[in-house]
């Protein structure tokens, strides 16, 4: 019993020790940087007026500014907490509301992007000619910065009366489809000569070969690309919210924060989008595990 619990204790440390250490180091560095970056303003605005100030005063003031250059972690955490729990869910002051707006654009864009990527991959795998004519465009599309594309998409779609969710989803799709298309092309081509010949000896038609061999063989390639795709799609949705003068969404929140020099608000929106990214990729990973049969590895 006692040895078991001792082992457990050591196991816990082995498991969480490195994580905790990294978090502590990051926090310490963050606080030190915050003091360093904010001190110039604090000294200029407040401390210069009161002679005889010490290090304690400096640290206290640099970590509690209204508009610091770099807010301290606890300021961000408090702002985040206040926004999430201090306001009703449908209030524009609640970050969860903005996260919901952004994630609905992300999810719609992700679904459209995955379908587009899959369609392109199937077309490319079936025809060398189409591969040669389509693939360069796919590559080229990703070399254009999304920041340049986003306003164009929004203006064009706005001129035909499409506003709100859909244009953002289009931008999200634009970033999503690429990893999916590339991974699926590789995955659909992954079956070896022997597997293909095996089906050949069964006199299988191309429909059988596609559904019974190529598609299942491509799944291990598909899922990692979906995780990349949904994270890229989130970036696309946030970028899509920047030029619209959008009222809602994490991108709009970032933009208003920077308009008013409200750095704490920017940082809590950033943290919220990071959390949202984790939740979305986690959801994809969970789906992957649920859909992968007990086999593999």
């Amino acid at each position, binding site marked *: 019993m006692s040895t078991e619990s001792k082992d457990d204790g050591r196991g816990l440390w082995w498991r969480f020790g490195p994580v905790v250490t990294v978090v502590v180091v990051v926090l310490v560095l963050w606080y030190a940087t915050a003091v360093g970056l904010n001190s110039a303003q604090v000294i200029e605005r407040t401390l210069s007026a009161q002679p005889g100030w010490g290090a304690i005063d400096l640290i206290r003031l640099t970590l509690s500014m209204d508009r610091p250059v770099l807010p301290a972690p606890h300021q961000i955490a408090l702002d985040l907490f206040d926004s999430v729990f201090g306001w009703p869910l449908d209030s524009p002051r609640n970050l969860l509301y903005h996260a919901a707006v952004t994630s609905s654009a992300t999810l719609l864009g992700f679904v459209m992007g995955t379908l587009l990527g899959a369609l392109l991959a199937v077309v490319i795998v079936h025809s060398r000619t189409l591969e040669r004519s389509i693939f360069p465009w796919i590559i080229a599309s990703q070399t254009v910065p999304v920041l340049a594309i986003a306003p164009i998409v929004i203006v064009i779609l706005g001129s035909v009366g499409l506003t709100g969710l859909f244009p953002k989803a289009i931008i999200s799709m634009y970033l999503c489809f690429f990893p999916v298309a590339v991974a699926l092309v590789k995955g659909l081509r992954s079956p070896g000569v022997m597997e293909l010949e095996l089906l050949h000896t069964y006199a299988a038609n191309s429909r059988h070969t596609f559904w019974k061999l190529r598609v299942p063989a491509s799944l291990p390639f598909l899922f990692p690309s979906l995780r990349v795709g949904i994270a890229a799609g989130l970036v696309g949705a946030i970028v899509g919210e920047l030029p619209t003068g959008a009222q809602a969404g994490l991108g709009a929140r970032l933009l208003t924060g920077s308009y008013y020099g409200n750095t704490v608000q920017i940082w809590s929106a950033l943290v919220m989008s990071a959390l949202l990214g984790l939740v979305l990729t986690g959801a994809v990973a969970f789906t992957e595990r649920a859909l992968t049969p007990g086999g*593999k590895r």
Partner: protein
Amino acid sequence: MSSSTASPTVEVQGVSVVYPAKEHTVTALDNVSLNISEGEFISLIGPSGCGKTTLLRVIADLEQVSSGTVRVNGMSSRDARMARAYGYVFQAPALFPWRTVLANVCLPLEIHGIAKEQAQRTALEHLERVGLNGFEGKYPWQLSGGMQQRVSIARALGFEPKLLMMDEPFGALDEITRDRLNEQLLRLWEREKRTVVFVTHSIPEAVFLSSRIVVMSPRPGRIVDVIESGLPADRTLDIRDTPEFTRIAHRVRVALQDGHGGEH
């Protein structure tokens, strides 16, 4: 003796397979003729590059002939393939890792449009025949190499083909596993009297399994000798220690050396 009954299961007439290459063309098979009757166990043996696998692939319509004709069950090899006349076992098990053992054996049956329930019943029967009952729910990676190859044999037998073609199916296995599988394969053949065409480069394996041994030689690939084996059908591995077995093995070895010697 049995070769006179009706038309042969496999009829290879003057078949050549030539691969064009930049420098000089490669002749994988040069004017090869061979008849295989129903119920025979034929081994194709020879050093690598002698065209034994090419000959098997030509019969299976996995490779096209440059000249000559191949007929399987009186049909062209393509028609025979489309009629699902044969089962083919590759050098590697080629099981699909995302399918369970049972689902792997069901694969050809699914493609042939057999109802799921019927397919599973048939698949279970064949798994039992290769001694794998109880393993149907496992995934391929949970099985040893020998078991995986037995699954692939069950898969090839699943739709009851009259003709079974095997391309060095046990080549990658250790000798002990290989011996056991050889014995199981022989029992299977003895029971069901399917026609088997078996490619190998092991003399003991060929002599132990076959009713006729076709010895081939390389550059260009051709048949140098066909050796009838009169060993009793109910033989076990022990027969390898008998003078009769040694005599046949010796003949095969001499034929292989002659084939090779004639080249130089």
